[in-house]
Every structure is written in C-alpha cells, then in structure tokens.
C-alpha cells in the first residue's frame, strides 16, 4: 500500500511557536511529494488535537503519521495509542522533536525554523519506510524485590505483601529500620521515631508474605520487567537467625569492643552484637572481617588476636585455652619466637605494634605462677599408633595435634631429655628449662608418650611394632665445617655441640679470648654463653655487614651491651695452631658484591687484606646440617641435603612417613617448625583416614582489608625490663623479665581489633542453643521477581571536609545524627546531652545547610535540615531547660503540613535565629568570656555585621547525600544516577517513582533528600505501581528487536559473540544464526556488525535510518 503521510506540527502554546515559525514549517512540509496533509495546531496532545489527526486518518485514508512536537519520551505513547484507536499499527508513527531539540535550545528563530524543517523532513522520509510491528505479551512474575529496609522499603514491602504477594526485602545491615530508627523524635509532630517505626518493623519481620534477607546485598540482576532474576549475597552472620533467641549471652562474653555504627560511634558495641535492642530480626550477628594480620601472619596459625583480646579482659585462663587450641608452647614462644605477628601488627602504623610475644609470655607465666591445672588426657578415639621421631618443636607440635585428634602417639627422642633444640640449642638465659619442662609436661598429660634415650633409624622396625605412620622431626644437629686449614685443631669447637654440652651441665673448657664465626642466632647464643662461662673477651667474626646478619636484632643488641665485639666483613682463612693447640686465626677482610641466591649481597675477599687475630677458642656457627646417619637409609634427600618431603603434605618418598622442621626445611625458627609439625599432623590424620591429603590445602585465609585507625590515641607499647649487664654476664639467669598483670591488660587494650571478631569462641560455649556457627559461609541466593523497588536511602554528609567547622578536630562539634543518638534515651549517653567533659551545655549553636546549598559540596537543599534543626531547639530546651539555643540559617524552608506552624512555635519558645552561614568555628578565645568555648564566627546578614558567638556545643545540620556506592548499585539495576548520584526518576514531575528501566522503581532518599512522610508516600506510590503490574499480570515485550534473514546469513557467527544477552544461537543444520526474540533487547550491536547485512533491526532498519540521514541533510 502506497504510504499516505499526515504531518502534524504542534505550537505547544508558545513553547514551539514562540521560536519557530510553525506556519512556514507546515507550508514547507506540505510541499514534500510524499506528504498528503500537513497541519499546525496549538496543542497536538490535547483532545481536539488528537481528534483532528484521528479524523484525517479516517477521512483521508492516511496510513502513516508524523507529529512534530516535544520529545518522544513525553508523548510517543499518547500518539501510538491514537494510531491504535484509529486502526493503524502504532509503529507507523514517528515523532520529530522540535521543542527540546530546536525551539528550546536555539537562540536564532530563523535557524530554529530551518532546523525544525530538517527534523520534520527527516521524520517524513523515515516514516515512509516504517513497517507495522507486533508486540508479544509475557506474564509478570508476582513476586517483588525490595532493596533497602528503611522506612520506605518497609512501607512498600508491607503494602505489597498485604495484598498477598510475596516480597523479598533485602537489607545490607543486620537489622531493618534504616536511618529512621536512629532518630529520636520526628518533626513537626515530635512523635517518637522508634515508637512509630518498630511496630512496622515487627510486622515486616513476621509477615507471612515477606522474606526478610538482612545482612545481604544484591550482586547481579538479569532479565527484564516481569521476569528478573536476582542474585543476592547473604553475608555470613555466624549466628543462626532461626536458632538465636536474642538472649545476649554471647554478647556478654565477647572480649572485643568496637565503636557502634548505630550510635554514630559515640558508643560501643561488641564484635558479637545486635545494632539496637528492637532490631528485626532480633538475632545477633558476629562482625568478622577476615583474619587479623597477627593471626593471619603466624606460620602456625596461632590466634594471637584471640588471646590478646581475652588478656585485655583479664580472662587469662581463657586466653591460654585459645593458644592451646593451636599449640602448647606459650611460655617458649612467648620468649623465643621471632614474632612475625608483631611485624604485621596494624597498631604499628599508628605508633608501635602490640607486644604480642610479651603478652603470650605473660599468660604462660601467670598460669605457672598461679598453679597450672593438670591437663585433661585427650580422649582416645582412634586405634592407629603414630610414631614421632624427635621431640623438638616440630615433633611435639605434631604429637600434640594428633593426640588431641584421638590417636595414640609416641615420641622417640635420642637425647636424655625431650625438647630438642629448645632444650639444647637455646641457652637458659633466654629460655629457662623450667618453662620448657612444664610445657612438655602438659603435652605428656594429654597422653603423648615420650621415650628418651631412644634413637630411631629403622622405620621398618617401627612398623613392625605396629606404628601406622611416622613423622620425622630429627632436626639439623650437625655443624657445618669451613674447610680451612687447621680447622681440626684443639680449641676449635662447634656452636651446636658447645651449647648442648653447656645445657647438659657438662664442663666445657674455654680460653680467655673466644671468637665465634657466624652471624646467626647460634653464633649469638654461643658468644653470650661463652661470656657467661667466664671468657674475658668474646668477639664475633662475620663475613657480611650488620644489615645482613640473620640473628634476631634484639639479641644482637643485648650481646653488644654485654660487651661482645663484632668484626664485620671478616672471614677466617686459616686456623694457626701451635703445638696442636689453637693460637691464632688468620682472617681476611671482605667487601659486599652482587646479591646471591638468598638475596643478600655476596661477600668477596679483598686481596692482600689478611691479618691475624690472637685467639684461644674458636667456635664455628656457620650453619647446621642434617645428620643422615640418624635417618632411615631408604629416604630421599633434597639437593640441600635435607629430607625431601612434599611442601604441602610433608610426606616423604616413603609412604606413610612424613618429615618436617629443620630435618626437612633446614635450620629455621621455632614457629616454622611448629607450623610444619601441625601441617604434618593434618596429613597423618588424613593418611590414616584414607582421605585426600592435598584437598583444600594450603588453607585459604582472608586477611582483613582496611583497618580503621580513626580516633586512636597514640600510646607507647609496654616495655619489659632486662637484668643489668653486670648481673647478666655472671649467670644464666633469664635476661628479660615479663609483664605484670596490669601492664599486660593495658597493653592488650592497645589492640585495634583489626578483624573485629577475634575468634576466641567464648560465644560458642556461652550459647545454650548452639546458634553460634563460626564456620558459616557466604551464600548466594537466586530469586525470580517481576518488579524491583530500590529504597536504598542516603548517608549523612561527613562535615570533617569543611575544616572551618572543626568537626573531628574540636570537641563538642557534632553532626545532626550524632545528636539524635545522644538525645535518645536508648542512646550511648542514655539521653543525656553531654559535653566531652561530662558537663551539660549551657548554650548550643545549630548550623543549618552544612554541606547543602554549598557549591563546594552539594548544591541541592537537603530538604529536612531546617526542620530537624528546629526540632533540636525544642528538644534541647525540653531536656535542659534554660539552655540558650541559636540557629544559623540561610533561609528557613518550611513548606509542608505543619512545618511553618512548628517554626513559629520554636520562635515563641525563645530560640534565637541568626541569618547567615557561619564562616568558622574556633576555640581561639579573644576575650576571657570566650575562654573554653567554641566561638561561632558569622555575619549577621540581617544587620550586615560580623559577630562572634561563644557557645558550649555546636550541632552541624549535615546534608543528606547518596551512598558512596550509588553508582555501582545503579549499574547493577541498569538505572542511572544524576549529577549528585541520586537515582534518576523517569520523569521529574509525572513519573517520580519509576525509572528508565521498566519494572525498576525507586522511593525515598535514594531518589532525592526528603522527609519520612515523603519517603512513605513514594513507597506507597511505587507499591501501587508494582501492584498494578502484578494485577495486570502481563507486559508487552520489545517489538523493536533484531531479526536474521536466514537467506542472507553466511553463518559467519560474528553476531553470536557480540550479543550481550546471548540471544543469538547458531543453527548447525542450517549453518545460520538465529535470534531468540524472547531474549533480544534490540540494542543493534549485531545489526551494525553483520557483514552480509542479513540482520534487520525492526523500527531501526538501515533503510529507515539512511532515509532519515538524507532527510536531515537534503
């Protein structure tokens, strides 16, 4: 049928006619050959306007219509309905936007008229080719997703649910209630906020049609109106919502206290908490932010945060229990650990790290001093016997874990006493034997059998005795040689043997001048021991410099204090003996070259720098190796001469035989040996249970990300005292003393509680209902809904960026929400308005528009501050009669019901209002009267004078602003944000709760700042819109989608990958691609890319657009 086109150009009153010469446009359009009729009318969208078009269609037989008026966003649906009424397909209609795109933005009327002509002409050309299209209807899923559990979300959820339709209410906080539940009273009626909201919250929590998902966030949305699929991430609450009865037993025992977000950080809460007593759900939640750096870093996984937190509460016994969950060596590690935990401690970024090692020692010493209870023997639940060879830290740690797992464990020790290097390598002055003995005793009490004086070299023999698994932890006891001439002379000894003999109480002959070769802990220990044995001069010969010395720095310092000299960059080249006895050592000076494999700079000898040192005794401490003669013959070794074992499972080349500690890794720290023993224990258990030894290992741990240091006041770390040097060098008395109880508690209280929950697990035993589940995992839930409502609210503007107001710097400058909490009887001060010094203020200034109506921050008005500020005046006067209250305003905005009346009431109550935005709040007094006060500096703009007003407290009425992640949220739901990041409504006047994305609605402060009443109104409006869609039960799908002409398709599949929705399938039999019209959204990506022009974009066909291009440019 030949197109017959009618064109209707709208004056839009003067909106178009005022700029564009409409008659001229009509005259021109009428002259176009394809146009049947062109007309002008005052308001084309009006009844008569539409009637005129309808009449023309009928009388003239028009089959295509162009309306030139406003943006199609506005009236395209109006005219499409007109087409349908007139019996024409709505897609045979086109709109030329000559108002927004020509009349309103063009200054020159002539240019505007020419532009209008071109736009209408283009539409005429385009409409010529337009084709009738059919839409399909799809059902609307009757469930709804509401995001945000503030008053708007609650209201909407209740309204929808009350109609008998299911609502998923997702809230990211542990309780619903939003900001409204934080407020004390609401303006202008002075209703108690909690009193009016909590009934609604309770209803929401118990409503049969509402599924509440607190502590959850939406992560992904797909689909479209009527059929959205939503993924919701349920954060682990670590407390079973269904089991928890809110008894607060867990909260009482929790040792971790952190600032309460609900109380604007004016008060505190526990790590196990409920934001406020009326929370819905009433269940508690555990705030777990991963692992604290200390616990995360410990090679053996000792929960340092746990015992530090318990020490801070004086719960020393419980603290020991936390440590003993992992290993038995509090006293040992509290003395000799290299404490990587302290290196990572976040407190170190503020001042100094927590003295974690000293705290560990404290709790062990405290227990020992007060009499340790005998350990309960571990329950023997398993039959398989396990042999551990070596009773050093690795062996005992392994035995400890396995005996606790229920196995019969026997430790074989070649020496006369258990302890390995802990006993024979570490001198008494660092680790008193009594401490070690007690901790070994504890392991024995648990049920570990230790057989001393029993060397094991034959594993088959062990197996014959019925041992099903063996852990080799023999250590590395052989001193390495230097391979220099004269090394075997009398007077040359090796550090390990030397230390062992001293430990065993054997007499060792030492000369007066002793030199120790090496820079590690063994060297330092040997030197200090030699000194204590009476050597007159002790020195260290080290081939590198101080920076490369591997010994613990504090040990080196103590050694130097004691008088040991260190010759850096020096290396012995020959031992000169006289009559078979050491006399001198020939040394050479070294310099540092390129870094070697260990990353340290390689020492290089300086030629001709040889010199001699007069020495009686030389102790070699240059390294330790594994004693292969003490190991089974059939075991494999690594290149470095240690027992070869898997790095994760610690299994050796022999099945059922495991190895760890120095024997496998070479000489290392105590804590690393313990770690290896523990890992081996896991493997042994899995091996004996026939489980996969590698699965899930190494264990994935998440280190806490950001640790807030806000408000942390610097405080020095607890120090321990040391014996005076003179006393030290005469005996083997322990050098360092421990912390006393008070110092330990104080030190533990410096802890920042990085990961919040310290996993002490006291809550687990406190809970009678077994509701605490520390192993709870995050869950992703998928739900299908037909509609979505976003009611994600706002956050309060942080006024600390406005430095002139001193928030965060000056005491007694608070924000509006802080004041709400302060004045609330359930708040942190129980409703008392208090200054930092605990006194009540006698004068208060309230500053309006902080962050609002300010081009430096937010240009918009936050809509509620005038009223809540006036409310504060009233409440201040009510709580503290006689208080002077001053309000600083720019304009008072009181446009709603009862607002102006409220304003008048406050004026009558005697609040003094100054018009003018204060320039500064200062504590610098100019007169004695101002001393100790906050001085508000402002211009009283009503009289044009600058003034100073001293007050006790300042309340900053802070702006409402969008959440920081508003843009991300908008992206998830495929809607847009405006410049201030509030969500954009579909139309500012006529469609304020819908968005550009059909089926996604918005309500409350996420759309723009508003009060409770407006939020509730919007929520109700959005609920009504959603219910209308549910009630209709179906929606029309997009007709303007793409379609592939299979005749032209070459099957190249370029389009397949381009489609963001995966709507294009390749039909193998036909070798062509095909678009699924239920999935296609009509973006046109495939159309533009098709090399065969086989894809047609309905209503945006290439032909239509080409015609439009021509029309615009003719």
């Amino acid at each position, binding site marked *: 049928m030949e197109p017959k086109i009618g064109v209707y150009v709208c004056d839009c009153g003067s909106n178009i006619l005022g700029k564009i010469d409409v008659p001229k446009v009509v005259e021109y359009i009428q002259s176009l050959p394809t146009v049947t009729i062109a007309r002008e009318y005052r308001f084309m969208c009006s009844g008569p306007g539409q009637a005129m078009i309808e009449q023309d269609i009928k009388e003239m037989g028009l089959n295509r219509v162009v309306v030139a008026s406003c943006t199609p966003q506005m009236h395209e649906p109006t005219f499409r309905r007109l087409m349908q009424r007139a019996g024409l397909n709505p897609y045979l209609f086109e709109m030329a936007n000559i108002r927004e795109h020509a009349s*309103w*933005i063009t200054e020159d009327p002539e240019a505007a008229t020419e532009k209008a002509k071109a736009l209408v002409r283009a539409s005429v050309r385009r409409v010529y080719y337009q084709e009738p299209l059919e839409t399909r209807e799809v059902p609307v899923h009757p469930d709804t997703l509401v995001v945000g559990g503030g008053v708007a979300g609650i209201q909407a959820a209740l309204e929808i649910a009350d109609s008998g339709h299911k609502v998923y209410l997702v809230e990211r906080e542990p309780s619903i209630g939003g900001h409204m539940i934080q407020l004390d009273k609401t303006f202008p009626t002075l209703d108690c906020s909690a009193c009016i909201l909590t009934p609604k919250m309770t209803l929401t929590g118990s409503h049969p049609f509402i599924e509440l998902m607190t502590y959850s966030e939406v992560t992904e949305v797909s689909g479209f109106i009527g059929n959205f699929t939503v993924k919701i991430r349920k954060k682990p609450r670590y407390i079973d919502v269904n089991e928890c009865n809110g008894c607060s037993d867990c909260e009482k025992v929790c040792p971790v206290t952190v600032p309460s977000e609900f109380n604007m950080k004016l008060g505190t809460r526990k790590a196990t908490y409920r934001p406020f007593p009326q929370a819905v759900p009433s269940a508690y939640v555990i705030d777990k932010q991963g692992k604290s750096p200390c616990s995360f870093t410990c090679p053996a996984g000792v929960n340092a945060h746990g015992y530090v937190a318990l020490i801070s509460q004086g719960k020393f016994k419980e603290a020991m229990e936390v440590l003993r969950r992992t290993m038995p060596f509090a006293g040992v590690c509290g003395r000799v650990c290299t404490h990587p935990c302290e290196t990572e401690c976040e407190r170190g970024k503020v001042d100094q790290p927590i003295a974690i090692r000293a705290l560990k020692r404290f709790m062990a010493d405290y227990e020992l001093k007060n009499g340790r209870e005998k350990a309960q023997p571990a329950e023997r639940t398993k039959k398989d016997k396990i042999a551990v060879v070596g009773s050093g830290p690795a062996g005992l740690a392994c035995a400890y874990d396995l005996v606790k797992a229920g196995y019969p464990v026997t430790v074989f020790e070649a020496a006369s006493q258990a302890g390995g290097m802990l006993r024979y390598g570490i001198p008494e002055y660092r680790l008193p034997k009594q401490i070690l003995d007690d901790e070994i005793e504890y392991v024995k009490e648990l049920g570990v059998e230790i057989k001393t004086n029993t060397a094991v070299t034959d594993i088959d023999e062990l197996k014959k005795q019925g041992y099903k698994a063996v852990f080799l932890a023999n250590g590395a006891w052989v001193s390495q040689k230097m391979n220099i001439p004269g090394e075997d002379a009398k007077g040359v000894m090796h550090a390990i043997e030397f230390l062992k003999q001293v430990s065993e109480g054997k007499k060792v002959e030492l000369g007066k001048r002793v030199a120790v070769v090496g820079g590690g802990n063994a060297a330092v220990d040997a030197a200090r021991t030699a000194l204590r044995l009476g050597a007159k001069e002790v020195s260290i010969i080290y081939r590198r410099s101080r920076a490369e010395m591997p010994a613990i720095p504090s040990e080196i310092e103590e050694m130097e204090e004691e008088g040991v000299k260190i010759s850096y960059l020096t290396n012995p080249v020959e031992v000169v003996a006289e009559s078979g006895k050491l006399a001198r050592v020939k040394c050479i000076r070294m310099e540092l070259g390129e870094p070697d494999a260990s990353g340290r700079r390689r020492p290089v000898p300086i030629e001709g720098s040889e010199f001699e040192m007069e020495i009686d005794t030389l102790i070699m401490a240059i390294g330790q190796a594994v004693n292969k003669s003490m190991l089974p013959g059939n075991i494999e070794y690594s290149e470095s001469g240690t027992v070869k074992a898997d790095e994760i499972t610690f299994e050796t080349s022999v099945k059922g035989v495991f190895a760890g500690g120095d024997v496998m890794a070479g000489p290392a720290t105590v804590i690393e040996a313990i770690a290896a023993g523990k890992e081996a224990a896991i493997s042994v258990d899995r091996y004996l249970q026939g489980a996969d030894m590698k699965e899930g290992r190494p264990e994935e741990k998440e280190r806490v990300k950001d640790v807030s240091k806000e408000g942390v006041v610097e405080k020095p770390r607890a120090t321990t005292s040391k014996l005076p040097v003179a006393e030290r060098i005469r005996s083997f008395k322990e050098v360092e003393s421990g912390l006393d109880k008070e110092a330990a508690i104080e030190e533990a209280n410096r802890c920042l509680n990085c990961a919040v929950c310290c996993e002490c697990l006291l809550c687990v035993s406190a809970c009678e209902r077994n509701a605490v589940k520390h192993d709870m995992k995050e869950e992703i839930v998928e739900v299908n809904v037909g509609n979505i409502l976003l009611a994600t609210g706002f956050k309060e503007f942080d006024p600390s960026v406005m430095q002139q107001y001193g928030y965060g710097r000056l005491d007694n400058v608070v924000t509006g929400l802080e004041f709400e909490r302060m004045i609330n009887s359930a708040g942190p001060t129980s409703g008392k308005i208090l200054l930092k010094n605990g006194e009540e203020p006698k004068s208060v200034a309230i500053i309006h528009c902080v962050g609002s109506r300010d081009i430096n921050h937010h240009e918009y008005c936050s809509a509620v501050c005038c009223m809540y500020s006036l409310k504060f005046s009233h409440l201040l006067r009510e709580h503290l009669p006689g208080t002077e209250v001053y309000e600083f305003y720019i304009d008072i905005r009181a446009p709603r019901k009862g607002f102006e009346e409220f304003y008048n009431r406050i004026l009558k109550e005697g609040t003094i209002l100054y018009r003018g935005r204060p320039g500064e709040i200062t504590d610098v007094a100019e007169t004695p009267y101002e001393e100790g006060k906050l001085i508000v500096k402002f211009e009283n703009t009503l009289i044009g004078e600058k003034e100073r007003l001293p007050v006790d407290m300042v309340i900053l009425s802070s702006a409402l602003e969008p959440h920081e992640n508003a843009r991300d949220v908008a992206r998830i739901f*495929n809607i*847009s944000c405006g410049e201030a990041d509030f969500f954009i409504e579909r139309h500012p006047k006529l469609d304020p709760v819908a968005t550009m994305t059909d089926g996604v609605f918005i309500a409350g402060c996420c759309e723009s700042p508003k009060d409770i009443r407006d939020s509730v109104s919007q929520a109700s409006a959005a609920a009504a819109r959603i219910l209308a869609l549910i009630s209709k039960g179906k929606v029309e799908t997009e007709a303007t989608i793409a379609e592939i002409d299979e005749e032209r398709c070459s099957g190249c599949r370029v389009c397949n990958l381009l489609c*963001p929705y995966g709507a294009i399938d390749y039909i193998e039999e036909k070798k062509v691609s095909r678009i699924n019209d239920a999935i296609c959204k009509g973006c046109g*990506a495939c159309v533009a890319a098709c090399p065969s022009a086989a894809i047609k*974009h309905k209503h945006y066909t290439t032909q239509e*657009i080409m015609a439009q291009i021509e029309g615009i*440019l003719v």
Partner: protein
Amino acid sequence: MSWEPRIVGFLCSWCSYRGADLAGTSRIPSAPNVKVIKVPCSTRVEPAFVIKAFQSGADGVLILGCHPGDCHYIEGNYKTMRRVPLLKKMLKQFGIEEERVRLDWVSASEGEKYASVVNEMTEKVRELGPFKANNGEGQHGKN
C-alpha cells in the same frame, strides 16, 4: 547565506538523547548545527551511517553514547568505543579529517555537557571548513 557546518548527531536513546532533552528543558542554548537521529544504542551506528551522512552532505558526524559502564545494553558503548577509531582510521585513508567524526559520552543528567559538546563540535567543523566532497558545484545547500 554563508556556509554553516552541517552535523548529524547519532544519540543513544537511553543517555545521550535524554541528555539532549535535558539541555532543552533546561533551556541551555547551543549551536543549531547538530541535528539528531535517535538510535537505541551507540553500538547501532553502522560505519555506513557515517559514510552515508558525509555522502549526503554532512560536514561532521557526532556519536554520543552512555558513559562507559553505564550502557543500558550492558556493553554496547564499549563496542562503539572500539569501532569508531577503526572507522576514523579508514576515513583518514580517504583523506577525511578525523575530527569530523567525534565520539563522546553524555549521560541523561548532562544537559550542560551536551550543549558544550555540540558547540565544540560545531566550532571544530567550522574551523575545518566544508567537507571537501561537498564543496563541489551545486551538489548541496539547496535548502
């Protein structure tokens, strides 16, 4: 009448077209030279449209889409972002100045930006002068 740059604007319907509407409702004046064609997404703009525009007498082509990450169709604007430089490269081979084609991002809330992009583009094209193929005798400028 003196020569005026003629520019075709392809605007995505979700962000940029609404941004242009906002410029209108906010009465932010701009040069009348850019005339708009609405497309569902900037990714719908075929290279052929741009060539067609030049062929039909345009002196410049402006393509506007949602900001990266904000595409209503998830990632259409990223495809445009990759496509347009290739097109420009090709146009360059034909001796067509790259500046005659401009791709930019205008959101639904950026009425001001829309106006300034239109003005900048108009001035740029004015600077470049008429598109050479259109400079021939009597081909265009009939209305």
